[in-house]
């Protein structure tokens, strides 16, 4: 940030070397800052994988490292989605795993054997350093001042909007995807500026890498064609645009089709049609431009324009027709819900149930981007002032990304790079204007700081001559240093804010829950790993675990046991089956569990500790998802009291009290408290005196703080009774006097 001052008087050939060295040192420092600000969780806790999704990536990476690339490519995983299995090689983006596998083998070849877990944990911080560098390159293409790139790099390095998805231990696709996103855009800008097929081909290669890494590549496939389309509409078509776009599309589409998960989607699905349409449009325009250059007639030109419009609309009409008739697949639900924001909640509850898929609130923007968010519009405005091809790209990107980040919290991630770039452009303009200390002579005709807002006139000399030719601008050292000082202050506050947010909000592993004791010391609640470890050591190798899908990856990763459903929600019906088993009474659930060969059922219960993300709070989503498939058997209305409240205390409805989830959560819970005092700390409710009774399953394990409870599914009764009858017989509930009355019997068939 203070580089600009030093650069200003380091001129000449020697100065260029010094500046190069300074830039190198600054970039290295930025990379170091980016890496070290992501290490809070590793230093505070330990080097483990954090959330839910990364556990699958970690498991897949371990498989890759253990079995080699070809086995990984056709890996059929029979330990998830129990009866079905998952064709993992064809249903994941392999870029992340292959990257860390390559790093693993490279380090091994350098005789530095590092555990694969440590590579996975530290991959995201490492790549964030590269992201900062890519942002530097990208911004340098946009702005003429060299300081803008450095500012953008440090912004990108420490902005919490990006840190939130890339702290150490967050081994998710976004870890490398943001680097690839920014770098692909850099290559694209380079290609379109030079009109070079080489840079276009490089852009296509990195685009292919991006496709292999993250599903968000669709953003690139729509942004680059949109950029080109806007350029064409502005009448800026040139042969540079043709060369760069056509090279990128021809190679990039082929590259993206190499990924099995993507397959023929670039030909078939609607998300990719804009790229194809713009490709066709460019061919037409290229041809028409040649003809037009050959035959210079005004009327002819207009006729040709009409021809272009006609062909374009015919192509669009054909596209619509193909989509309606079903040849081209319509938008997928996840993508469609970005446009129709109410769509997911009504039709696909599983998309709406994820907390990341909610609209963003205003404070989130400030929280994640502090001062960048109010510099962002100014930067877009600056781009409008100097509208070259690449500035158009910034404008298009900003508009698109700010819309998407407003619709979905998760897409804040794609907004962050462009916010950093534009904010850096503004800040560098301001600093450049106010940091040049030389004030021109009164008769100097060219003023370096003409662009600066002229707030007051400072006549340097009195008299008539200066009145004739007044010098407009701010030249006093005081006002300049005030502005620069204020900006520096903002930047310092930004660093403080970023560090604070990273340290407090984004650096907590969800596997380990940390709490503070009254004396300030840290108390760690480690129930998850305790229970998963129990499963790993005390159950059969192939014992099937049924839990809600949130915990599927963690069970697969930590407990190493087969699960029924997991976080890759590809089969909604199967999830609804689990939801039905959880939300029905035991008599209904037991046959379902038998059919799916379930051995253990795992629930998360936070009532004792006040851990709010437990299964009772997620219960309504289970009900809703199950209701979507079996509307006759599971009804959401039945889980509410007559007044429409969701209660778990003595006012709870019978359906609620009889549901398997309720029983499993509160089984034996009364015994922890004095009679009549049982309290649920999350719901803040007093529980009924008589706890639920379980017949067909039995408690197998409950963790220390009762967060995880594991139940074993009982075998069939030896004498063929219902479990309810058998259990009540065991409890001695048989009537003292045997009733002589004959019950209604049915005819024995055999």
């Amino acid at each position, binding site marked *: 940030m203070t580089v600009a001052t030093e650069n200003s008087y380091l001129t000449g050939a020697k100065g260029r070397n010094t500046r190069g060295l300074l830039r190198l040192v600054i970039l290295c420092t930025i990379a170091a800052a980016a890496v070290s600000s992501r290490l809070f969780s590793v230093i505070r806790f330990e080097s483990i994988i954090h959330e839910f999704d990364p556990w699958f990536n970690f498991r897949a990476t371990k498989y890759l490292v253990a079995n080699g690339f070809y086995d990984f490519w056709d890996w059929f995983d029979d330990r998830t989605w129990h009866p079905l299995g998952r064709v993992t090689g064809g249903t994941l983006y392999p870029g992340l795993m292959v990257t860390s596998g390559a790093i693993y083998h490279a380090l091994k070849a350098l005789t530095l054997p590092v555990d694969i877990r440590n590579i996975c944990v530290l991959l995201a911080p490492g790549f964030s350093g590269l992201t900062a560098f890519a942002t530097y390159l990208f911004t340098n293409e946009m702005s003429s001042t060299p300081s803008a790139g450095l500012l953008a790099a440090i912004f990108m390095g420490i902005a919490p909007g990006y840190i939130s998805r890339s702290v150490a231990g967050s081994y998710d696709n976004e870890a490398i995807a943001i680097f690839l996103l920014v770098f692909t855009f850099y290559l694209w800008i380079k290609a379109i500026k030079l*009109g070079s097929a080489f840079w276009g081909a490089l852009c296509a*290669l990195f685009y292919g890498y991006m496709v292999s890494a993250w599903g968000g590549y669709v953003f690139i496939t729509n942004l680059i064609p949109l950029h080109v389309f806007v350029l064409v509409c502005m009448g800026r078509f040139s042969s*540079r645009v043709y060369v760069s776009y056509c*090279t990128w599309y021809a190679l990039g589409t082929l590259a993206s089709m190499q990924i099995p998960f993507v397959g023929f989607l670039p030909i078939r699905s609607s998300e990719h049609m804009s790229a194809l349409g713009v490709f066709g449009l460019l061919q037409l325009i290229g041809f028409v431009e040649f003809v037009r250059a050959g*035959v210079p*007639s005004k009327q002819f030109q207009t006729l040709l324009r009409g*021809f272009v419009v006609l062909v374009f609309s015919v192509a669009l009409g054909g596209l619509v027709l193909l989509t309606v008739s079903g040849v081209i697949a319509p938008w997928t639900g996840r993508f469609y819900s970005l446009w129709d924001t109410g769509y997911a909640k009504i039709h696909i509850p599983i998309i709406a149930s994820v907390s990341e898929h909610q609209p963003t609130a205003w404070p989130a923007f400030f929280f994640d981007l502090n001062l960048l968010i109010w510099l962002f519009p100014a930067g877009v405005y600056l781009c409008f002032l100097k509208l070259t091809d690449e500035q158009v790209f910034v404008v298009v990107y900003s508009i698109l990304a700010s819309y998407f980040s407003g619709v979905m919290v998760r897409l804040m991630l794609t907004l962050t790079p462009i916010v950093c770039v534009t904010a850096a452009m503004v800040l560098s303009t301001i600093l450049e204007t106010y940091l040049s200390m030389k004030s021109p002579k009164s008769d100097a005709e060219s003023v370096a700081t003409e662009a600066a807002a002229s707030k007051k006139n400072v006549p340097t000399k009195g008299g008539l001559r200066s009145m004739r030719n007044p010098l407009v601008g701010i030249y006093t050292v005081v006002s300049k240093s005030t502005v620069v000082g204020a900006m520096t202050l903002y930047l310092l506050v930004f660093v403080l804010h970023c560090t604070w947010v990273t340290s407090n909000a984004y650096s907590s592993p969800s596997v380990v829950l940390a709490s503070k004791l009254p004396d300030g010391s840290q108390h760690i609640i480690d129930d998850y790993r305790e229970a998963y470890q129990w499963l790993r050591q005390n159950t059969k190798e192939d014992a099937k675990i049924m839990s809600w899908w949130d915990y599927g990856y963690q069970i697969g990763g930590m407990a190493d046991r087969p699960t029924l459903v997991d976080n890759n929600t590809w089969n909604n019906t199967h999830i609804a089956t689990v939801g039905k088993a959880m939300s029905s009474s035991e008599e209904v659930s037991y046959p379902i569990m038998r059919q799916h060969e379930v051995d253990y059922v795992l629930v998360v219960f936070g009532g004792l500790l006040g851990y709010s993300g437990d299964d009772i709070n997620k219960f309504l989503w289970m009900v809703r998802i199950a209701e979507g498939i079996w509307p006759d058997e599971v009804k959401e209305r039945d889980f509410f009291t007559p007044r429409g409240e969701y209660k778990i205390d003595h006012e709870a409805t019978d359906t609620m009290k009889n549901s398997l989830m309720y029983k499993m959560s509160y089984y034996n819970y009364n015994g922890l408290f004095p009679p009549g005092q049982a309290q649920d700390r999350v719901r803040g409710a007093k529980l009924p005196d008589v706890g639920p009774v379980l017949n067909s399953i039995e408690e197998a394990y409950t963790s220390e703080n009762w967060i995880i409870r594991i139940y074993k599914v009982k075998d069939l009764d030896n004498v063929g009774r219902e479990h309810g009858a058998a259990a009540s017989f065991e409890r001695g509930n048989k009537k003292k006097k045997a009733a002589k009355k004959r019950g209604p019997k049915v005819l024995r068939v055999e």
Partner: protein
Amino acid sequence: MAAKRNARDVTPSPPINKSGTSTPTTPAPVVKSATSKSKDANLSAQEVAVAMWDNYVKATPQRTKLIDVFMAFLVVVGVLQFVYCVIVGNYPFNAFLSGFSATVGQFVLTASLRIQTNAENKAEFESISPERAFADYVFGSLILHFFCVNFIN
């Protein structure tokens, strides 16, 4: 941009060869544009086409003509593949796609080479010499063929 376009309009005679480029490849649009031209210039479509063709043969350098022949060949191959696909069906779809997109991609790359090596476009591509353009072309073609061979299985 605007300045460049004007400059092009002032000297219309050499670029005519460009329109001729597509005469062997996609004849239909040329005829169409020629008919539209005949409205104000009272020339029949055939005359315009013949004049364009003559001009193309005269004004285009030999090397560019070679490129054009290659592009025409690619178009023929692509059309043949497509017709075959329409007649027989697209069962090994990846094979059809890789073959077809190989021709499309090669066509596009060759068109890029043609644009970049064209002497009139010097201003547009000041940083790219013809040799560099050819090296880029080779690089792009190699990648394209690698992907196509990989995709055809």
